[in-house]
């Protein structure tokens, strides 16, 4: 973990100027998200109790919250600027969003789910292998366990070659040993491709497995967490 974290820091340094800048407000019924956020590191975790707005923040970053106002830029590219009426649609942001409940397309087989964004069959096969899904490729999502679904959702996002990974409780249905293994695989992917990660979770352990930097979201407000790695 330590070695990998140091590696990651080195990578982060290189892409410092093109990081994520978020200054966004999402007025909703349940929570009123209001964050001004510039993560320093490459892989960050946002912790917080459920209902604090973690998922909403990810959705806003993915371009799925039509009510979001403010400014979001990533890698020097403006995604949202409500003052000048800019809002890049979700399909142009190239993020890998892994929603909490996987949301596999129920009418497609695992293979088709993984290849949805256009990945070739060789890539699909190797991704399935690294996620221990090879034997299941031709099944439909309804025959999978929760943990298997989460892995497919992760693989589907990674295979879209995202420039930013947005992971919403991505390991919640995995048992501990598998959790570490999959987390390591995700870290490796991020390092290899220089892909930043924003992971939200209510689980400290998940955060430790992936992130270099930790934040806490409480009732729509984001603060730095002293326990940062």
């Amino acid at each position, binding site marked *: 973990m330590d070695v990998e974290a140091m590696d990651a820091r080195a990578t982060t340094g290189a892409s410092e100027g093109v990081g994520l800048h978020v200054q966004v407000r999402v007025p909703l019924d349940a929570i009123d998200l209001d964050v001004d956020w510039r993560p320093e590191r490459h892989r960050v975790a946002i912790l917080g109790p459920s209902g604090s707005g973690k998922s909403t923040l990810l*959705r806003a970053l*993915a*371009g*799925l919250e039509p009510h979001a106002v403010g400014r979001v830029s990533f890698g020097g590219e403006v995604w949202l600027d409500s003052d000048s009426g800019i809002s890049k*649609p*979700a*399909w*142009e*942001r*190239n*993020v*890998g*969003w892994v*929603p909490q409940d996987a*949301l*596999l*397309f*129920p*009418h497609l087989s695992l293979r088709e789910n993984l290849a*949805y*964004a*256009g990945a070739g069959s060789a890539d699909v096969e190797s991704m399935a292998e690294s996620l221990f899904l090879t034997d299941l490729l031709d099944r*439909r*999502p*309804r025959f999978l366990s*929760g943990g298997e*679904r989460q892995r497919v959702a992760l693989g*589907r*996002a990674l295979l*879209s070659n995202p420039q930013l990974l947005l992971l919403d409780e991505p390991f919640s249905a995995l048992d501990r040993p598998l959790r570490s293994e999959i987390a390591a695989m995700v870290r490796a992917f991020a390092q290899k491709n220089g892909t930043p990660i924003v992971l939200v979770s209510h689980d400290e352990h998940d955060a430790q497995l992936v992130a270099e930097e930790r934040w806490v979201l409480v009732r729509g407000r984001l603060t730095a967490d002293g326990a940062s790695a």
Partner: protein
Amino acid sequence: MAQPLSAATVRETAPSVHVALGTGQTPEEPTAGLVVLAASSLQDVLPAVARAWNASGGVPVRFGFDATSRLAPQILRGAPADVFISADDEWIRWLEERGGVDGASIRPVATNQLVFVVPNGSSDPPRDARSIGDAGFARIALAGENVPAGRYARAALESAGVWTTLVPTVIRGGSVRGTLEWVARAEADGGVVYRTDALTESRVSLAFAFEGEGFPAPAYTGAVTSRTEQPETAEAFLAFMSGTEAATLLAASGFGPAGPPATQRSTPLSDSSLARASSVSVNPWSAVRLSLIVALSAVLLGLVPAVATGWILARRDFFGKSFVSMIVMTPLVVPPVVTGFLLLSVLGRESALGGVLSAMGLPIPFTLLGATLAALVVGFPLYVMAIRAVFDTVDRRFEEVSWTLGVPKARTFRRISLPLALPGIAAGAVLAFARSLGEFGATVVLAGNMEGETRTIALAVYSLLESPTGRGATWLLVIASVILSLAALLGFEGLSRWQRRRMEDHHGR
């Protein structure tokens, strides 16, 4: 009897009236044969007359039978008829005033007689009109108020001085056949119908025939329509109808000769004439075929609009959404007959839109297209409701995932939303199909009841109920429609289960 006019005379007396009165109707290619719209009570005898006419070299004739009171307005609205035979004089005059028929062509073709019938086995039936009031009947069946038979009946009863006494007991059937059916099933204690209809119904007994001068005798009047393209042929057919050959056929069915009738006498009607054969112009297979064509075309024609409307109602919020939703659902709550009337008002040949469509060669009223449209409009709410419901249940986050994977909205709709909604769309189509099969009210108003053109199963059964000889065909159609409807329902059940299973993929883990 009026002397038969030769076709040559006709040509001189009524030269090309249709040109003078012709509206903006499209010149259609000359159709082979005549279309004759005639009063229901002629349903059994006219085909025989037409056969005789064919045998003597006449062009083929197609018939549309319905109550005179329904046919006359249809003719005014542009029903593609060449000849109209009314069960009374008034509707013909009504049409003449409005330019629907050529006044010069009006001529009497036959007469009928009103009789009072009671269910078989009734004890002590009344012997004349005056004694009906003393019979203590709870219900007396008459034809509808605007149906000639119903008007004649009222006039006869008024003339006998018993109308006011009987009013509380009167029930009105639509047509004479419907009225007769009520008496035959003893739903009514007695009824006033035409002699010709009474003769064909073995389940009723004749109590007496109405006689006297105080009321008009039922008389059939024919006329050539103003929009016919073949006035000479139409005139010739009318002339044939009032000729001796036709008179023999009419008399065999119990009709009286044309012309001002002699004083009606209370002739004892012999039961032996019940044995006469008669034909019905309902072809059950054509009805089944038409029903399937209409229902399938309605479903196909409605597919894209229904999916679009269902999706918009499920997924979009916009000003006036509830209004749109209400308009779409209206045909579900408005009586289909009203829907048909509204469609006729909007799409009839006299309306702006209908005129344009007609000019484009797509006339709506009294065509197969009209029947399809009527079925579609009436089935559309069910179609949309099923599709809206399925789009409501498809988690829109599937679409969001697809967007984040770089697939824009239109392609996401095609790859995700549409396949996920497919079972619901199919279920909606099945519902609309089933509803189309059962459609009657809007169809009969917008598209009429034309054998081989718009007479679907429902209309055919309705027509057969007005015919004394259609029992076999009726049962055939009843069985066919029950089978088709059950098949549709089974399909719907299967599709619903498919949809639930699909959704379980996601929700039921």
